């Protein structure tokens, strides 16, 4: 047990160091790319708590990101009674608003299980983009809201991309630590108990309603923060900024990252970003195979590649990257336990 703890803390420190020095090795634009990976990572952390730990499937977390993003947009453009709020301060507010929405969803979710819950949350993902279209007014309608651009940090001499990077990963590391700490403790045990057997958990005195709803709220908070950051990075929100497919991508990232693993989620976040934005790179790799000549610009190629990669990854690694990590580190962490 102790060894595992030490490994986890070492891993965290290594990550923090990597985060701190990365921008000096990569171009400015790459910093931005890593920043967006960080945003997906934050959202996946939340989803990991919900699905990986409490076992509730949500196919609608894009909607919580959208709530966070729209909150940031409205607050920083229109502000509170006419006073625009500085973008950084909108982040916690966006998280809280999204978290409250998560609690609201978590309550009726108590009555649903398994795939019913999955489909209802999917329905939320589908329905949510319609709301800003109907309630044009302050939500900006289809043409959306344009935010203040330059994320000028207070006096720090950083490019906007580097600033976004440090802001995002700073928050990500903090939220990662919080999630890890939460999950190590009684909350985490309660959630895992619920995931493994609701009946057994209830008989042990765990308040199902409280913990399940809490999981929704926490995961929505995380998604809201991610959405707020994404809105800042894009300087624009409209219904297409958080489309239906985003909720799907989040679940994909979670599955690829591996349920129950926090570190694997970084791989999941990277995959989501990479497959969306670098389909041409993948096409070029595939073109190395004999008799294959793909044109990445041909409509349909990027979808086909994304789909094929997903299928392959899931067939080869059903437990995701996290599962792989666990297998790799198992000799280290279980060596001391010869009786198991």
């Amino acid at each position, binding site marked *: 047990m102790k060894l595992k703890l030490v490994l986890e803390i070492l891993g965290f420190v290594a990550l923090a160091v990597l985060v701190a020095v990365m*921008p000096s090795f990569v171009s400015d634009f790459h910093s931005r790319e890593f920043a967006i990976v960080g945003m997906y990572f934050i959202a996946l952390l939340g989803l990991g708590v919900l699905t990986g730990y409490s076992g509730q499937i949500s196919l609608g977390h894009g909607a919580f990101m959208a709530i966070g993003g729209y909150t940031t947009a409205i607050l920083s453009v229109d502000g509170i009674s006419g006073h625009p709020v500085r973008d950084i301060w909108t982040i916690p507010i966006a998280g809280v608003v999204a978290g409250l929405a998560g609690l609201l969803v978590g309550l009726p979710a108590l009555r649903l299980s398994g795939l019913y819950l999955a489909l209802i949350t999917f329905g939320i993902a589908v329905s949510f983009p319609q709301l800003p279209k109907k309630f044009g007014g302050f939500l900006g309608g*289809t043409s*959306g809201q344009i935010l203040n651009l330059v994320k000028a940090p207070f006096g720090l001499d950083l490019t906007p991309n580097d600033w976004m990077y440090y802001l995002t990963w700073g928050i990500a590391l903090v939220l990662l630590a919080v999630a890890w700490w939460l999950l190590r403790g009684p909350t985490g045990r309660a959630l895992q108990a619920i995931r493994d057997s609701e009946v057994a958990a209830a008989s042990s005195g765990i308040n199902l309603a409280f913990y399940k709803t809490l999981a929704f709220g926490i995961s929505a908070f995380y998604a809201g923060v991610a959405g707020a950051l994404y809105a800042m990075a894009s300087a624009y929100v409209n219904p297409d900024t958080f489309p239906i497919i985003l909720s799907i991508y989040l679940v994909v990232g979670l599955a690829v990252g591996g349920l129950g693993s926090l570190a694997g989620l970084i791989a999941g976040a990277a995959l989501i970003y990479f497959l969306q934005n670098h389909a041409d790179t993948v096409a070029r790799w595939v073109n190395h195979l004999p008799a294959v000549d793909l044109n990445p610009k041909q409509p349909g190629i990027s979808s086909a590649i994304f789909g094929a990669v997903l299928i392959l990854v899931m067939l080869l690694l059903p437990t995701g990257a996290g599962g792989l990590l666990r297998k790799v580190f198992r000799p280290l962490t279980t060596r001391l336990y010869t009786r198991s």
Partner: protein
Amino acid sequence: MVGVRVLLVCLLAAAVAAAAAGARPNATPGVTANEIHLGSSVPLSGEAAIAGNVARGAEAYFKYVNARGGVNGRRIKFTYLDDGYDPGRAVNNTIRLVQQEQVFAMFSSLGTNNNLAVRKLLNDNKVPQLFVSSGATTFGRDYKKYPWTIGYIPPYSEEGAIFGRYIVKNIKKPKIAILYQDDDYGRDLVSGLRRGLGAKAKSIVARVGYDPTSSDVQPQVTQLKASKANVLMVFAFGKFSLQAFNAVSRLNWKPQIFVNDVSSASALMSIVPQKAANGAISIVFGKDPASSLWKSDKGIRLFQSILKQHGQDITSRDLKDGYFTAGMATAYTMVNTLKKAGRNPTRQSVMNAATHLNEKGNPFVLPGIVIHTTPKSRFPLTQVRLQRWQDNNWRPFGKLISARPR
């Protein structure tokens, strides 16, 4: 501890950046001795993927020009990225093209919202946003705030106004029903129509919008028919336009139909029930490669030969796809603009060139159209003709009409 490290890294980065900037003081990004680099963000996947063909058409045209020596001795390098019609990705692509790829200018990015999303950041960084693929009036009108932006095709609101004026002049007791896509694109057309109708705007008896997430517009058309209108405006997009004609035919309704340009490609009109399509009126400014009118036209022959020779993965369907032609027309104007920008183009000089256009003889638009801009009038394409669908063909009638916003 981490904070100190961050600070040190930042100082180092700043020092490096300063040194780099000092090394090449006035270099224009995207222009080298043999190359000009243009960038674009278009949908190549998802629902709007077919519209992305404008970039493929432009790409073929640039390759053609390069094969003939390029512009003032420089080849045009055209990099376009897929945004899946998602503004977030469009922003990411644009930043990547400007910061990473160091393009000279953004060219013909597609989508009203996608272009709105990047307009401020391009203008703040003084990067030209040229010949935007969108008919939203704002791209030509708001130049005071966004001097580095210019549109291309006639604004949708003017199109609506032209229909309105035609109705006032030619239809005696119009009772107008409107089917429109419920977003800025459709609403632009409707408000233009209202303007064109003027005092007769009250002849609009029914107006039903549909959301692009709909699966079929039959219920909407059924509702419109019940209003007993004798004129139907189809301000729709792609398959919804097709479904509208289908529904009109199935309901045995025979109004005078007006269909907007974007949905009026011959390839589309020829697959709807012809009893509904015959007599429909639209506007046109480009040459439709699927129309028999232009089968032997030199411009369209050139279009098809360029696609065959320089296009990638071109199918026989693509040779009749109007999106490719639109892309090529825009590319033609782009090349002219680059020529006008001088032997050593800068971003400022290309903006000047783009706002002082007087292009005649673009082989991919209607004969007689002059692509004309001034710094205060940034609508390059403002001449159209009316056309009527009859016997499987669009037949233009009347003279060139102005679609310039007043």
